[in-house]
């Protein structure tokens, strides 16, 4: 709703400037924003917290600011004369749904366009002026905070009943829409039909029109949860439903009724009848105990007892003091005050947050330890950056299409998505990364490397799982072996041993994929992105290599504690070899064959693979260096020649590798 400075001052028995008013509202955290300002008035909006429904009224705002000034609240007149005896009986089906319901007849009303006096007020508060009866109910809602409904009495048969709708019932509401109802919706009905959706909107069949002669005013307390469910069910939120959802007090309900009856009698010149009511007519006020120690200990400052007593009195709290403990009851409209901390907040709000000192706590310096995986993840990020990858972050919400790549997991669907392209939780980081690659290439960045750390999500049996992944993609930078080297370098720097690459089928590299194993456990894949997927993402012209790794095992097995090894004392001898192999030879076989000889081999370095036309069909020439080094002596030339011969012989015997040449330096 909108608030008017002028209208607010009418309820204050004292003076307040508009600047003061706005300033106090600011201090109280209601963030006023002025929407209209002229010589006569200032119209503003407020951010009303969800627990302070009482502020959705002029009277509520007045009650909120008077403690700042030396003034009291002017309650508008509420007494009027009952000049009719007509009554409409009230029935409540379930007191849990409706704690209290009241209605009152006003006969012989003259319904017409609202006169200027009320029209101005209604418009200042942001409503469109209509018939006087309707404007009165809106005005009282804004003034007191009680939502009211006014029926055309002659369209109501016999009695009013508060009950749940039955499946299949419908109502055309006053906005002209037909509403399908069921048991979740609370309605007002007469002996024949539904006449309103309780707390939300009235029905067209009982609506006040220019021809209306007699009216029935409704003022009730509907269960906030039932109103909220009904409002969600029919998809309609109104000023009335918003107030009921926040809770209405019995006092507000009664004040609202009296005020509406008075204004209807006066403005529409009608004859008001007696009150017809049902339900709980009085509610006990909550009793809250607190002491000054609690106030001072929680606020961290010394607050004077007199300040507290004075404030709570001005806020209409009932206060008693028993053995140093305050026993207080908030006014009935303050349903936000439930326990002592709520009172502390109230005290420091008025004392002003700005006056609370700024202290650093004095406490044990014993720090709380971080989860170990947090630090490792950050170090992994550091390594990725050093390896030349740029970090990307994606939402993780994606399209069905993008989750269909990974058929080995069952993807999780969001039941209430905002759009089809954000309807599923990702099962792999790769598809969103490919979209990012497309975006970057479109914007002229052609050669780059990216990585992402983030969760993927999947369903396993009946549970929902999330798993942290690390993915790399290289775009037009080097070849597959550059990426493989970087991934190997990551493993190396995490001191991961027992890494194995095995040729296996993968999702993203249909023809060219290596599965990666850590201690025999599958932890991911490295691949040349298949043409099919490249085409799908419109990346056909790019050279794309990728890898996706599960972080859990990597994090568990990683170590950042280096182990010192004595550097070798004796010089190495390098021998280079070139062999012709069948093209399907696996490097691992060559390496394992040489290592199986148990020679003093320090390392084996691959350096070339090629093919020339003079070579037999389906063969390749593979060249590598073997570094021999003993930890106990300098190897002699003869030793090295002997080792080399063994290598040559074994490779021929076991792998059918034909020596093309060898040499080297010693």
């Amino acid at each position, binding site marked *: 709703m909108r608030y008017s400075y002028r209208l607010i001052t009418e309820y204050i028995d004292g003076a307040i400037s508009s600047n003061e008013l706005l300033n106090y509202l*600011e*201090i109280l*955290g209601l963030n006023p924003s002025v929407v209209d300002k002229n010589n006569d008035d200032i119209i503003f909006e407020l951010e009303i*917290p*969800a627990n302070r429904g009482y502020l959705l009224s002029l009277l509520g705002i007045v009650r909120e600011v008077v403690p700042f000034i030396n003034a009291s609240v002017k309650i508008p007149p509420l007494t009027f004369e009952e000049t009719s005896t007509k009554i409409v009986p009230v029935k409540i089906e379930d007191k849990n749904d409706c704690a209290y319901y009241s209605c009152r007849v006003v006969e012989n009303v003259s319904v017409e366009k609202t006169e200027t006096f009320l029209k101005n007020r209604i418009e200042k508060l942001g409503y469109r002026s209509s018939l006087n009866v309707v404007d009165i109910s809106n005005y009282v809602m804004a003034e007191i905070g009680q939502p009211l409904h006014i029926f055309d009495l002659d369209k109501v048969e016999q009695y009013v009943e508060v009950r749940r709708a039955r499946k299949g019932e419908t109502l055309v509401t006053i906005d002209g829409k037909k509403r399908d109802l069921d048991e979740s919706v609370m309605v007002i009905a007469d002996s024949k039909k539904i006449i309103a959706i309780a707390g939300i909107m009235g029905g067209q069949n009982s609506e006040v029109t220019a021809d209306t002669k007699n009216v029935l005013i409704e003022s009730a307390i509907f269960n906030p*949860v039932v109103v909220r*469910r009904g409002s969600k069910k029919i998809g309609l939120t109104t000023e009335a439903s918003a107030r009921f*959802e*926040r809770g209405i007090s019995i006092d507000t309900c009664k004040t609202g009724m009296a005020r509406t009856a008075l204004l209807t009698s006066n403005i529409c010149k009608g004859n008001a009848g007696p009150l017809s009511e049902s339900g709980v007519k009085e509610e006990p006020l909550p009793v809250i105990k607190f002491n000054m120690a609690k106030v001072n200990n*929680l*606020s961290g400052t010394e607050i004077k007892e007199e300040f507290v007593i004075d404030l709570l009195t001005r806020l209409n709290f009932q206060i008693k003091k028993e053995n140093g403990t305050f026993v207080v009851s908030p006014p009935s409209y303050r349903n936000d005050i439930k326990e002592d*901390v709520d009172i502390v*907040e109230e005290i420091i709000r008025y004392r002003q*947050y700005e006056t*609370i000192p*700024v202290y*650093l*706590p004095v406490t044990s*310096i*014993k720090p*709380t*330890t*971080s*989860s170990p*995986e*947090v*630090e490792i993840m*950050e170090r992994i*990020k550091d390594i*990725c*950056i050093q*390896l030349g*990858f*740029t*970090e990307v*972050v*994606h*939402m993780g*919400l994606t399209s069905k299409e993008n989750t269909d790549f990974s058929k080995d997991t069952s993807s*999780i669907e*969001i*039941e*209430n998505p*905002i759009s089809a392209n954000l309807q599923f*939780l990702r099962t792999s980081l790769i598809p969103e990364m490919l979209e*990012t690659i497309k*975006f*970057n290439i479109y914007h002229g*960045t052609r050669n*780059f490397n*990216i*990585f992402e750390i*983030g969760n993927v999500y999947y369903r396993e049996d009946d549970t*929902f799982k*999330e798993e942290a992944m690390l993915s790399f993609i290289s775009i037009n*930078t080097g070849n597959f072996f550059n990426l493989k080297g970087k991934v190997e370098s990551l493993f190396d720097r995490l001191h991961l041993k027992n890494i194995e690459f095995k040729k296996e089928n993968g999702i993203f590299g249909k023809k060219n994929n290596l599965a990666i194993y850590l201690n025999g456990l599958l932890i991911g894949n490295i691949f040349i992105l298949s043409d099919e997927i490249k085409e799908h993402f419109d990346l056909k012209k790019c050279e794309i290599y990728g890898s996706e790794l599960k972080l859990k095992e990597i994090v568990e097995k990683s170590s950042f504690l280096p182990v010192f090894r004595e550097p070798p004392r004796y010089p190495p001898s390098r021998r280079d070899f*070139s062999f012709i192999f069948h093209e399907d030879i696996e490097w691992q076989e060559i390496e394992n064959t040489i290592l199986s000889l148990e020679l003093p081999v320090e390392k084996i370095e691959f350096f070339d693979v090629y093919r020339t036309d003079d070579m037999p069909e389906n063969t390749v020439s593979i060249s590598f260096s073997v570094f021999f080094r003993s930890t106990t002596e300098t190897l002699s*030339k003869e030793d090295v020649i002997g080792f080399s011969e063994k290598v040559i012989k074994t490779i021929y015997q076991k792998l059918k590798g034909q020596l093309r040449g*060898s*040499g080297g330096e010693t």
Partner: protein
Amino acid sequence: MKLEEIKKKIKEVGEKAVKEISTISEGDTEKLERWKVKYLGRKGAVNDLFTSLSLLSSEERKEAGIQINALKNKLISAYEENKSKIESKREEKKVNLSFPGKPPETGAFHPITLISREITTIFIKMGFGVVTGPEIETDYYNFGALNIPDEHPSKDVWDTFYIAEKEKILLRTHTSPVQVRIMEKVSPPLRIITIGKCFRRDDIDATHSPVFHQIEGLMVDRGINFSHLKGILTHFIMEMFGNTVKVKFTPSFFPFTEPSAEVSMSCNICKGIGCSTCHNTGYIEVLGCGMVHPQVFRNVGYNPDEFTGFAFGMGIERLAIIKFGITDIRYFFQNDTRVIKQFN
């Protein structure tokens, strides 16, 4: 082939090589290298000799092998000698150094990581530990345990994505569930922060994103009060944005804190004069916070009469927007490498 033939060949190769190298004029590097390939290369004459050894018996092979190695060493030293002569004579080449440098292939952190690390560092110095929690959450941890009433308007700010609404399983709308999970496990005192992805059913625009990152903090001990909340958060904001910023605390409402506050700081764009970023107020909202609600303590089995604490939460993207002057939240998920690299 016989041993004699090979010996002869060794001799021939040796003589030919020595003769050839003697004709190479001083300074002719190219010719010298060609000579090296011819005799000492992988497919050179010396290696050919080694290869032919396979035709001999092992006794003979040893003898010839020694001779070939001797030849090889002789040729290597001839090469080295010639080369050192050349090098001593060679004039240092002049290079045109005016061409632009070649940039190395470097990676860059995403701004979300940069801001997260900056924040984390500040709190770790104050003894806070970093913990994590799941993104797929239950209604209890995301709402109920945090004293957020079911079916009340105060739940409306957290418009939620459900993945199984009947079973009350959702994507967390904030990082606050981590508070509950850690308090269930650890008894006080404690000081933690947690950083992570959060999900809300917000349509995408310049200031809203259905996915964003949040950092959440919690400190619980005996005697923790509102002035400490002000102290820690004021210190944090000054570390983050410089100690000339003004920090303002105003009342707010969160179901899981009481009293609750909103923290704003003087606008770092207009320096408090008023601009579009701060809606002409001179201040920008930075975070929400408050003293932990006693009901939250009861829910995790802490005694609210013995322990008090404060909690705070803020959006990482929002802080990055304020700190780096980023104009649109969509940049964070667009992953334009030209943008990401600006912050490193």
